[in-house]
């Protein structure tokens, strides 16, 4: 991958370093080459490696809390050795359990499946597949990684403070997340969580703007938009979704930070907590949920779309056929991206939402099943009468389609508000999004890496 750099060894320092035949920097120390690199491939690898480390950490969190789920209340003395009072007597304490669940969600959703997936493949593939020499702004690209790195550091730091990391769920609903009195995880850990996420938003904005600019402006001759590989299209929509929705999360978190530290009442009203009456009046706890899910739902597609794009290409290449219905695939990607912004309140059917509004969100949510179905049928037809090479990448791609079917079908249950009254806040939801955005995207990621 980095062979291109090795072609120019030595200490050439002439002024033509940026002419047509040379790219990259000629004289590179270890630091500029691997650490503060502006080369898109190296940055892609940095994202991948950081993502892998986070995946291992986040996976270990889930192993720990599943010990408690599988063997409730049982004592594992070794845990006390490692975690001290968080696992008193070797039993995972409730606050430890909730912190693990929260951090597992945050880490996997944002740090692994957002940064690790689109950060890796957008950086690696966009310049290669549109025929550009590098990203529109390699410097911004580098910053994007380093903001992600800082976000990671702050998040890791929050794991080691005395009161523990955020523990109100990855959705950090206030007032729980706004009131230090309500939970020890809502003390310093929550502030660090917000800071880390703010840095993360900056990272994803820098990256996203760069991806969009590169795809729009730096295509090589003859690479019209309708000839772009579906992977690039999916990365494009991913970036657009991120750029439009992450700022909303950012503002939501900023208001939360104000509520926590400056005494504002954006989300707080009528609160009596820990024997104390708080002065806040007039805020709305539900407002945060609107802001959060305005990112939160597109986030699902930010995670899923790159995997969809790569799977399309891997299936088509390995069955030695063109993708069936390129335009339909593109159209359904577009439809999914648009609808992604119009369905956020399906996470809020039981918050006292106006029933009429709820019904509109049911309609829009179930509408997503149509483009999703088109995609599945087109993948199937791509396989049909092909000459399929079953490489590991193909197997993962087939696995992706299978998981996407199962996950998508369970979404039809949850998107229907009537059924959601019963299923909301249950393990059914957990299973649904793990299949469709957790495991399926993970499969897409593996497929991409193996390919």
């Amino acid at each position, binding site marked *: 991958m980095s062979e291109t750099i090795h072609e120019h060894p030595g200490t050439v320092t002439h002024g033509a370093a940026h002419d047509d035949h040379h790219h990259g920097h000629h004289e590179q120390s270890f630091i500029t080459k691997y650490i503060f690199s502006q080369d898109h491939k190296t940055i892609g690898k940095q994202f991948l490696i950081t993502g892998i480390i986070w995946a291992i950490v986040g996976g270990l969190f889930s192993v720990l809390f599943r010990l408690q789920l599988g063997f409730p209340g049982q004592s594992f003395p070794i845990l006390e050795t490692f975690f001290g009072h968080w696992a008193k007597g070797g039993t995972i304490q409730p606050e430890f359990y909730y912190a693990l669940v929260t951090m597992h969600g945050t880490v996997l959703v944002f740090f692994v499946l957002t940064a690790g997936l689109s950060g890796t493949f957008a950086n690696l593939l966009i310049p290669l597949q549109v025929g550009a020499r590098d990203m529109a702004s390699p410097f911004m690209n580098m910053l994007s990684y380093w903001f992600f790195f800082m976000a990671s550091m702050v998040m890791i730091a929050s794991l080691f403070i005395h009161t523990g990391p955020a523990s109100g769920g990855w959705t950090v609903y206030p007032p729980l997340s706004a009131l230090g009195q309500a939970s020890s995880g809502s003390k310093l850990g929550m502030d660090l969580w917000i800071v880390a996420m703010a840095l993360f938003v900056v990272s994803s904005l820098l990256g996203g703007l760069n991806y969009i600019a590169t795809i729009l402006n730096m295509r090589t001759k003859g690479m019209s938009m309708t000839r772009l590989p579906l992977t690039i299209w999916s990365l494009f929509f991913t970036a657009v979704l991120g750029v439009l929705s992450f700022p909303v999360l950012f503002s939501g978190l900023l208001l939360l930070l104000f509520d926590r530290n400056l005494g504002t009442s954006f989300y707080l009203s009528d*609160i009596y907590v820990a024997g104390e009456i708080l002065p806040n009046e007039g805020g709305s706890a539900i407002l945060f949920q609107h802001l959060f899910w305005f990112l939160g739902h597109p986030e699902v597609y930010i995670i899923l779309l790159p995997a969809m794009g790569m799977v399309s290409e891997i299936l088509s290449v390995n069955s030695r056929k063109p993708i069936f219905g390129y335009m339909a695939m593109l159209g359904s990607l577009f439809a999914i991206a648009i609808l992604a912004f119009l369905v956020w309140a399906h996470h809020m059917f039981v918050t006292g939402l106006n029933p009429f509004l709820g019904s509109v969100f049911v309609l829009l949510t179930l509408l997503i099943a149509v483009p999703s179905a088109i995609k599945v049928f087109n993948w199937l037809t791509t396989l049909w009468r092909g000459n399929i090479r079953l490489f590991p990448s193909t197997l993962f791609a087939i696995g992706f389609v299978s998981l996407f079917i199962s996950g998508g079908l369970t979404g039809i249950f949850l998107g229907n508000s009537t059924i959601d009254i019963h299923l909301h806040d249950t393990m059914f939801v957990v299973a649904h999004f793990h299949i469709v955005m957790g495991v399926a995207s993970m499969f897409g990621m593996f497929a991409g890496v193996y390919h």
Partner: protein
Amino acid sequence: MQTFFIVAILALGFLITFQIAKASEYVAVLRGEEQSRKQSNKVNAFLLLAFLVLGLIGVYYCNENLKGKILGEAASDHGVLIDRMLYITIAITFIVFVITQVALFWFAYKYQHSDKRKAYYYPHNNKLELIWTVIPAITLTVLVGFGIFYWFKITGDAPKNAMQVEVVGSQFKWEFRYPGKDGILGKKYFKNITGDNPLGQIWDDPANQDDIYIVGEPMHLVVNKPVRLVIGAKDVIHDVGLAHFRMKMDAVPGTPTTMWFTPTKTTAQMKKETNNPDFVYEISCDQMCGQGHWSMRGEIVVETQEEFDVWMVQQKPKYLAVFPDKDPAKPKTDTVAKQATTVAVAGSH
């Protein structure tokens, strides 16, 4: 011991897979890469098919085995609608699930690489694509139609004769309030909350003076009588989760919510149906609300009108507990009972 065996088996399995992988790598080197790729292609194709068959058997097996673990029939009128919607969706999605999964793995097996065939060039077919846009669209229209129809039934206004109960969540308990004989829940203000006045009722509001406050005991409901729950929270968001009634509604501080339903089975009936003498209707807090979230539960007793009246008679308004000298029936015990009876009767109509 069992744990040890599981770990040992996992480790062994890992070792075996690793060894097989290594061995097959050596075989590949000996055989030549192209040859072994073709071989592994065949193996993979067969495994995909095997996976499909075993997977479908697994689906059936799990269903058969875990049948007894589901909640059983819904115990409310809305629950019946929700269950019906659930079964309609299961039926439709199950058909789609089987067709698409079988097609996926069957194609992967059937069209595995072969030197004798060439891939069929088939870039698009508008008619076909139109068909599989329209069919899902129609199916979803059906689902959306049913869904919204039931949704409006469930979230529509409660019937006039519904009894009202207030449910208030706080870390980590549920408190209830009945409106008393006037049928009106008195006003409250959170800054009035004290140890003596846990809900912050405004005592000057006459509607408050007969309200009955309950904590640490089950909520009582009347079978076949609609109930409208007025839901609130004091500190963070909680959620009134009533799995047996299939109902659920968030309890949000500062923003009261409501939901209504009609319980259709008494607790005694459920004890018989579930063959569980300890059966209780549970209120589980379904929204992560802090460190004691897991322990936040309440209970509901569903009983006949007569039983309910007997219970109601024994309850005393909170107002009289706070201001004992306002109690008109204080000196004579029999009038307490008399007054409470009228409260109960009024409260239940």
